[in-house]
């Protein structure tokens, strides 16, 4: 059995676990813990502390694993371990929380430093009324025109599929160079 992996990263509460959950054929193996910090608790009750783990079986011979990283900075020691040997990565950004854009940018740079693999940025929660416009997010995140910034709704399977496909297209394009 051959295996490949992709990493889903991004700031705290960007929607990484939900993203994997939407396409994984198994229930996501989540390492969530109740949140202790009051300010973070106001956003959600539990968070990933080690990793999330989802699986998509391609055929008898090939399996794609999806790893979600913990979003909180104090667990960033896990990032490099998860980045090892990845096919590519997705940076999830919560379009409704501009205060996390700077951190998303830092995470993106950090993962680029681990491995120069292809990546895409997913502007999550685009279905929310206070979501930032994707073009505005491109400016705020300081992403070049060549970087794929994709509108996304992590609860919507089709939307998640589109993000994964765009990453795979980028991987193919990179292989042609």
């Amino acid at each position, binding site marked *: 059995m*051959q*295996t*490949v992996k992709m990493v889903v990263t991004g700031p705290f509460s960007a929607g990484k676990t939900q993203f994997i959950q939407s*396409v994984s054929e198994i229930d996501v193996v989540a390492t969530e813990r109740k949140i202790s910090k009051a300010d973070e608790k106001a956003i959600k009750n539990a968070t990933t502390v080690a990793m999330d783990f989802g699986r*998509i079986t*391609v*055929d008898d011979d*090939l399996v*794609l694993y999806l790893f979600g990283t913990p979003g909180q900075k104090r667990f960033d020691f896990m990032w490099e371990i998860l980045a*090892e*040997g*990845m*096919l590519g990565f997705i940076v999830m950004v919560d379009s409704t929380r501009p205060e996390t854009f*700077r*951190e998303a940018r*830092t995470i993106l*740079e*950090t993962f*680029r*430093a681990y*491995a*120069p*693999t292809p990546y895409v940025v997913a502007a999550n929660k685009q279905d929310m009324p206070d979501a930032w416009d994707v073009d505005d997010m491109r400016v705020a995140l*300081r992403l*070049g025109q060549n970087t794929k910034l994709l509108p996304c709704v992590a609860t919507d*399977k089709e939307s998640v*599929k589109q993000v*994964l*496909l765009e990453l*795979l*297209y980028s*991987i*193919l394009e*990179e*292989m042609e160079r």
Partner: protein
Amino acid sequence: MALRGNLRDFTVTQLLNLVHLARKTGMLSIQGTNEQADIFFREGKLAYARTNKEDDHLAYVLYKTNVLSKAQYKAIASRAQGMSDKELGLLLINAGYVTQEVIINSLQQYFADIIRRLFTWAEGLFNFENDARPPADRITVRLDLENIIIEGARQLREMEQLMQEIPSLDIALKFTDRPGTNLRNVNLSVEEWRVVSYVSPKNTLRQIARAANLSDLEIRRIVYGLLQAGLVEMVRPELTPRTLDRSKMFPVQDKGEQRTLVNRLIDRIRSL
């Protein structure tokens, strides 16, 4: 107990606060990446400061604080060889060139500037030698540390914010592709122009800072401004191209098989 360690763990601001609160007398030596500074305190107040990169004689201090012109400094420095700072100070006062107040203010400004530079050092070994005194022939001051500490804390906060924006100095800059922007129409300071003149994907920020003689804080501050103005963007330096190690990414090594594998993944995702 020895007061020694690394600025990584204990900042200059914290050290000054300690000296101030404990009313310490002695010399704080800090060995930075490429510069050493010695700061002398008397009963918790700043008395004297010097670095190994600059002449610490009075004539140089007066020149650096714009009291003397370069020509005056050179003339005095050549004629006052062998003269102590105290003797030179008296000579200048008696000749009517400067007042005692001007000398004291210049020294205070020069010493405080040295400490401000130390605030930008993120790393360096420090050691506090109790009861060490400044050289006897130098003029000392008694400068309260409170304002310097507050300024240091402010700079520290700024540095933390800049570190978030520009986490590493090992990245390079390139001009953004904005045909409408003409650099000639932008008002830049001398330092900013100097940085702009080095902008190239081949030069890391660290190299630019060294070439332009800027501290970590100064280069980050300038680059942050240029980034916010949309004039430049951060790129990986060209001199350190990283190759993609596909052998770790794929379970197969043949490029054709790798391509087939990705296409199988695409087909599967589409069919979900």
